[in-house]
């Protein structure tokens, strides 16, 4: 079992009334409301908390990135990954992940990731994402080519990591005269690639076909099971049987000394009206071309303001606690709830999303301490009983392509 700590790095001291006045807290909310003095303090607090999480015993630190919004201050996951490569010693640095369609130069990304892997002495997990809808608008990445750009950038990065240069790349979206980076990953054949997501069927199938673990982002138990059905079916088609090492799960989780304190702080998870990516206009979340063509009918009604989001049904705090989509309580209570999730959905990777909204630094650190020192040891015991293994424990091949090439080599 691989157990990670995650925070969105919320810009918790942004002026709330400014968001209330305009009715949204993303993309077009003016950055005149961003205070770099506060930003400087918060970045350093986040960094301290990551180091503290390592001291408290977490296996990994999960990082992500978003743009133009107070719900997440990380504009470049590789920056914090670089910092962690230098200031931590043991934890895996798990990027979930770099939004590939947003880059115009995947080889630069391959270089950055190789540098992080070398500096961290091989602790990088290099997840890739398509990026949210509004990220495409914030960075001017064409949503109509989002999936094509994702797949082509992935192919180019893996090739840059595994095939000796120089070579030339003439793709549809990327063209490189010379690919020959003098920075290569320490981990061979390359760092593990994990793919997080929420709903998109195409991404689940793509991850399964490549043999990459899929990390379900705080989906309901029922939806998580559907994800695994789809993943397992695609894996079977690709000719292998996936296990817990293929399954990851991110859950909002706050631990405190008393249930009352935990629940009070956990309400902060709904600070943006419960919207994971801030309050936004639906059309920003789902620009045309970005979502699956198979879900076009449900998305157009959402975009037009005529229905709720197909990917994120609205639920009250109490409902989410009852449905185990938010876990809050004492270490003992939290362990019981998480154990249920483990039994029901059998993940080999779990990420605990903490320190959201306006939680105090003290509360955030208490939760990290209790997670690392009390919750995680108990979960590791449960994982042994349930035979839940992480990709590291299972010694899972980094990809199907590599496994097959390796098998062919061995046969020769």
């Amino acid at each position, binding site marked *: 079992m691989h157990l990670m700590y995650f925070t969105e790095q919320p810009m918790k001291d942004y002026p709330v009334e400014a968001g209330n006045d305009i009715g949204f807290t993303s993309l077009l909310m003016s950055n005149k409301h961003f205070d770099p003095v506060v930003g400087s303090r918060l970045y350093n607090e986040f960094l301290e908390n990551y180091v503290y999480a390592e001291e408290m015993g977490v296996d990994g630190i999960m990082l992500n990135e978003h743009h133009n919004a107070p719900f997440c201050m990380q504009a470049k996951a590789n920056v914090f990954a670089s910092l962690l490569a230098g200031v931590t010693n043991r934890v895996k640095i798990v990027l979930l992940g770099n939004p590939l369609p947003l880059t115009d130069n995947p080889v630069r990304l391959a270089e950055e990731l190789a540098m992080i892997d070398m500096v961290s002495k091989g602790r990088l997990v290099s997840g890739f994402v398509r990026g949210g809808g509004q990220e495409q608008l914030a960075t001017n990445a*064409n949503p*109509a080519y989002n999936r094509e750009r994702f797949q082509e950038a992935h192919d180019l990065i893996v090739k840059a990591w595994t095939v000796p240069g120089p070579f030339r790349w003439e793709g549809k979206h990327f063209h490189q005269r010379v690919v020959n980076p003098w920075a290569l990953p320490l981990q061979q054949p390359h760092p593990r690639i994990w793919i997080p997501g929420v709903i998109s069927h195409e991404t689940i199938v793509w991850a399964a076909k490549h043999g990459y673990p899929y990390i379900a982002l705080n989906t309901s138990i029922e939806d998580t099971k559907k994800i695994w059905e789809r993943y397992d079916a695609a894996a079977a088609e690709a000719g292998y049987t996936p296990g817990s090492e293929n399954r990851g799960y991110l859950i909002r989780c706050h631990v405190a000394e008393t249930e009352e304190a935990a629940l009070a702080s956990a309400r902060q998870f709904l600070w943006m009206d419960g919207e994971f990516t801030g309050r936004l206009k639906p*059309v920003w979340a789902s620009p*045309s071309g970005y979502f699956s063509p198979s879900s076009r009918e449900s998305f*157009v*009604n959402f975009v037009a303001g005529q229905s709720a989001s197909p990917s994120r049904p609205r639920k009250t705090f109490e409902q989410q606690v009852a449905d185990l989509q938010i876990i809050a309580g004492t270490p003992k209570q939290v362990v019981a709830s998480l154990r249920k999730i483990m039994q029901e959905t059998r993940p080999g990777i779990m990420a605990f999303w903490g320190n959201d909204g306006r939680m105090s630094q003290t509360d955030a650190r208490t939760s990290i301490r209790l997670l690392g020192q009390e919750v995680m040891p108990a979960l590791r015991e449960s994982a042994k009983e349930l035979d839940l293994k992480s990709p590291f424990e299972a010694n899972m091949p980094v990809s199907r392509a590599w496994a097959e090439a390796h098998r062919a080599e061995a046969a020769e």
Partner: protein
Amino acid sequence: MASVEWKSSVVSAAGTDLHVTRGGEGQPVIILHRDIGTLDRLPFYDALAQNHEVVIPDHPGYGGSPRPEWVANVRDIALLQRALLGRLGLNQATLVGLGFGGWIAAEMATCAPSGTSRLVLVGAMGLKPPSGEILDQALVSYIEYVREGFHDVAAFERNYGKSLSTEQLVQWDLCREMSFRVAWKPYMYNDSLPYLLRGVQAESLIVWGDDDRIVPASVAALYAERLPHARRETIANAGHLVEMEQPEALARLIASFIAST
């Protein structure tokens, strides 16, 4: 107004199937439709078809024309529409471009600078506005975008009805996706077009609604300056979607332009 018999067919241009609607008799007029596609029937089409043969091809990836994966920019669309004109024997037809379709019509004219007889641009995109900006549909919903196109919002309901069907929303989404594919960056213009327009020999009519909030009037001025044989007209009480807001006025203007040139 006499009723018009409209017929639809699929015509192959350079190996790509395009859906074409035709009606009326007289001098041929090709309508290059908008980035939001077009409704099947419009009073504007009927008005124009009283004295002209009106041909309305769906752009590749819009309406009834399937999306060719290779079409990557507006000039690709213009060249396919050119190929279609050749197939239909209508190389000398008057080109009427509406909004985004105006950009396509302008590109078509630059592709055959001596082979286009008349060019009508209505609130045309395609040029970087010397002042102001082309409204970015990526930031607003389908419905907001269309509403912004009308001077009088009552015209929205007059054209699209009281409630919008999922079918209509899906159509707008498909159109928008195709528009992103061909015109995402730079958004809705081509930097080389202002230079190429200088060679266009067609008689040109530049029409703008007096309340166009999608494409600034500075673009009209630039088209008029760059096209060698251009005249400008403004239609009162009209936004960007002139043909849906002032159909008779626009049809009259085009008919008299054709008759006088």
